């Protein structure tokens, strides 16, 4: 009985940690520009796919991962420079639509370069699962959790302790004022896209051994990550993590105890309930609109 519960919990935490990592990427760009970057899932895909193809060229895993993450970072900069920046003072909604277009473009490109097949990636460490009180845990799940935790701490430090981090926050609060005090807001935006692309790519690499990877993996994981971010409250780092874990655990418990058919329905009802009572999400900032 307990083993069963523990198994569902492990499953949920693994899936949830994946969602949380993706949600963090959404949070970062949202904080800097109030744009929801729907190409976030594509960064995830680039991370996984590029690692697999660099490894197929005979590179050691670590080098392949670093190159793939750097590649995604460059792509993040390009996305901001070539697609977002030319739109200048466009509405946030317009910018969001641009990111959707960019995601379709990147996905199409990936399909041309890498084809449509699914690819497997080996676990970082052992393939042997870990047994705890009768439940099993994939060793890769620990990597997802560990790297997720490190990234969260790093992000918190980045935003509270570094000048660049504070500049990003300042830009998000008031773009004009930020420019007046000497912050190069275009530079800050570019940086936000780069960091969030790096984040997405790292997430893509750590989850690839569990989920496999293919050119279209970003659609589904990107959407679930967005949902997690919305539950937690867009813009809150802690919210992204809690939202992701909550979504994952609810899904796994529903699949285990109720029925796998209703798993998604249960997860989505939860979102409705949360957003109904707390429209800004669990940890969303309380914003007063000035009229």
């Amino acid at each position: 009985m307990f083993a069963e519960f523990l198994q569902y919990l492990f499953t949920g935490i693994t899936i949830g940690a994946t969602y949380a990592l993706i949600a963090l990427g959404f949070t970062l760009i949202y904080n800097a520009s109030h744009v929801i970057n729907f190409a976030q899932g594509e960064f995830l895909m680039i991370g996984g796919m590029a690692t697999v193809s660099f490894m197929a060229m005979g590179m050691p895993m670590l080098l392949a991962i670093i190159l793939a993450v750097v590649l995604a970072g460059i792509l993040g900069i390009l996305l901001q420079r070539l697609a977002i920046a030319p739109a200048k003072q466009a509405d946030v909604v317009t910018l969001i639509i641009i990111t959707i277009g960019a995601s379709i473009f990147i996905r199409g490109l990936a399909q041309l370069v890498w084809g449509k097949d699914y690819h497997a990636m080996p676990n970082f460490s052992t393939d042997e699962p870990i047994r705890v009180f009768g439940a099993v845990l994939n060793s890769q799940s620990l990597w997802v959790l560990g790297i997720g935790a490190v990234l969260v701490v790093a992000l918190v430090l980045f935003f509270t302790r570094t000048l660049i981090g504070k500049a990003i926050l300042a830009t998000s609060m008031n773009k004009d004022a930020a420019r007046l005090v000497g912050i190069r807001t275009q530079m800050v935006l570019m940086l936000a896209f780069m960091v969030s692309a790096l984040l997405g790519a790292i997430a893509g690499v750590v989850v690839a051994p569990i989920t496999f990877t293919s050119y279209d993996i970003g659609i589904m994981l990107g959407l679930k990550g967005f949902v997690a971010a919305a539950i937690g409250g867009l813009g809150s780092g802690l919210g992204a993590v809690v939202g992701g874990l909550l979504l994952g655990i609810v899904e796994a418990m529903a699949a285990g105890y109720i029925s796998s058919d209703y798993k998604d329905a249960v997860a989505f009802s939860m979102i409705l309930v949360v957003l109904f009572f707390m429209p800004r999400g669990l940890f969303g900032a309380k914003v007063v609109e000035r009229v």
Partner: protein
Amino acid sequence: MFKTMMRRAVALVAAAGLAMAAQAAEPIKIGSFLSVTGPASFLGDPELKTLEMYIEKINEDGGVLGRPLELVHYDDVGNASSARNFASRLIRSDRVDIIVGGSTTGATMAVAPLVQQAKIPFISLAGAVVITDPVKPWVFKTPQSDRMAAERILGDMKARGITRIGLISGTGGFGSSGRAQTLEVARDMGIEVLADVTYSGSDTDMTAQLTNIRNTEGVQAVLNFGFGQGPAIVTRNYAQLGIDLPFYQSHGVASDSFLALAGEAAEGLRLPASPLLVPDSLPDDDPQKAIVQKYKSEYEARWNSKVSTFGGYAYDGLMLAVKAIEAAGSTDPEAVREALENIRGYVGVTGEFNMSPDDHNGLDADSFRILEVQDGGWKLIN
């Protein structure tokens, strides 16, 4: 579009050249619509390659009834409504003599009413049982149905003394149709399905569902009916959970790419598959051995890519069409239809076809071979 036109142009030029060789006889037009690009391209691509290659070969050998074959092909991009448009073009403006095509069940079912009305023989390359059950006079198909896969799997289980199973299936079209057929066949065969769980195509972890099955009292084996990467994840989770019951997959994942994805976790699992996966381990007295080996080596030599089960469906479709036209002695639609219906004992890549007025598929469940994964490769069980 441009590509299709180029292909048609090339085919026309080739056909024109050959037509002169065949005493300038009027070509026999074989119409085709396949999902060569788009999400189902893994089906349509090898199918088109097979048709092109064997039509060339047949023309080199003098054609059919002294007339060359001409392929008229359109790419439906996996979209049922464009399949319908192209089929109507094939019938009305290209005036083809027979249609061999339809990579997906959706495209096939969209076209079926058209060919029924126009009275043109149509050989489909798609799987689901609804295509030929109930029988439509002008519609035939070459792949085995999911029902036969279920019969074959449950039959193998029974032979091993397994009567109580757990079922996990995908919620996509292939998985849910397979699940329905499995439940029906299981009832007929006296096998109890104690656990019945599903996963959606985009799920990345099926441990919860498998734990559910593992904790169900009395389950002796587990069957996964699904398509795409899902079954590979199920296979990995199965191994991680250390479930040591016999494990079965469906024919939906009978390919080498599944083995690459699932890796060591696939060791020991069984599935029904086309003999095309194990041409060299077939016994010498197997009537299919020679033809399967020949198709595999010819395809791989011509296209320099691995042969696939789906190309085999197109091979059988084309050969059945040729056989029927030869037997009918003309391209008169009704005569060809009747000849198709009466083909018996044709040994193809997929199996031995015995058509009849109430069976427009003509295969039986035994045309699936049960394979087991051993040392990272396929091993023929029976």
